[in-house]
């Protein structure tokens, strides 16, 4: 138990500082570690908790609490959330205090521009990893493609799209 909690704390504390460009870029690594390395969750469960986190209020990074919950119960959930929040929040606090000193410097511009393509690659990878975890079968892939098109090119609220897909599931279509 203590060993698991230490593993959770160590892993998410590092992941916190690797979350360049927002929370969704670390989803693939979380999947790799929690499903493939530690075996805390199955592929399907990972897809499911992603859907639960997406349809709950608050930052979707809070999915880490569900990974912790499955791995080590409530203590696991709290340790995972603290570990994921503390390092990046501390950094944000320190940087926001001193930001006037380095605004507009060449290296800041370089970081801002240089992060963009890597972040975009990671967000693409994130979509790909989640789709692979969630979808088993041609119809599920079809539903993902359809919901992607609806969410990207129409003004329907993403929550409605997810719940509609859930209704299709309840009807036994998928």
């Amino acid at each position, binding site marked *: 138990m203590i060993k698991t909690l230490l593993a959770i704390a160590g892993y998410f504390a590092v992941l916190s500082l690797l979350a360049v460009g927002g929370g969704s870029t670390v989803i693939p690594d979380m999947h790799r570690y929690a499903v493939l390395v530690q075996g805390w969750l199955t592929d399907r469960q990972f897809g499911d908790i992603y859907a639960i986190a997406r*349809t709950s209020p608050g930052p979707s990074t809070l999915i880490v609490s569900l990974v912790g*919950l499955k791995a080590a119960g409530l203590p696991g959930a709290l340790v995972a959330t603290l570990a994921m929040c503390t390092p990046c929040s501390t950094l944000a606090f320190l940087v926001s205090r001193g930001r006037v000193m380095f605004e*507009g410097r060449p290296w800041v511009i370089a970081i801002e521009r240089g992060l963009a393509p890597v972040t975009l*690659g990671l967000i693409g990878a994130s979509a790909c990893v989640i789709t692979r975890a969630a979808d088993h079968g041609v119809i*599920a892939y079809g539903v*993902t*493609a359809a*919901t992607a098109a609806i969410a990207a090119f129409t003004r329907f609220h993403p929550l409605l799209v997810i719940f509609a897909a859930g209704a299709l599931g309840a009807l036994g279509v998928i």
Partner: protein
Amino acid sequence: MAGNSSACRDAPLNGPAPPSAARLAAVFLRIAMLSFGGGSLMWSQRVLVERLGWFSDTQFLGAISLCQILPGPNLPNLAIVVGAQYRGWRGAGAALAGVILVPLAILLTAGALYFRFNEVRLVQAVLTGMSAGAAGTAVAAAIKLAQPYPWSVKSAALALMTFVAVAGFEAPLVIVLAVMLPVSIALAWPRRA
């Protein structure tokens, strides 16, 4: 820009008195609940700029781009930056608690129910559908971010290499970032005119 941001650091734009820590927590809780299902940036802008007038549009853009450079989720980072600006570390902590605590309690309740009942056939069926749909919204997010980006051959190659390493080879993120970020940042270094 520099003048603007130092003003924004020292004093709020319109507010006569800086908001208390409790007020910061309440405001960020409100933003977190409003951005249920996405759109946290849009809601932060509406609440902080349009409704409360704590920031001008330019100041808000500055704060947002800072949060996007910093590692970590954007909304909690914004809470830290805004909270710290008004009330130092107490304000940062209060705003962060506002963003996280209530949503965490809701999510943990949902998660506990899920792990208790995920063998039930109807729960499985609904979640099979919902997770396919949620994956679709992740794909849509990727499309929407990639579409307006001014792609060049260089940036497309960097994004593709990152994508293949992570999604194709399941390489650990630490390694991918250790290789890709220095290259990408070096290539993006502004040239002297």
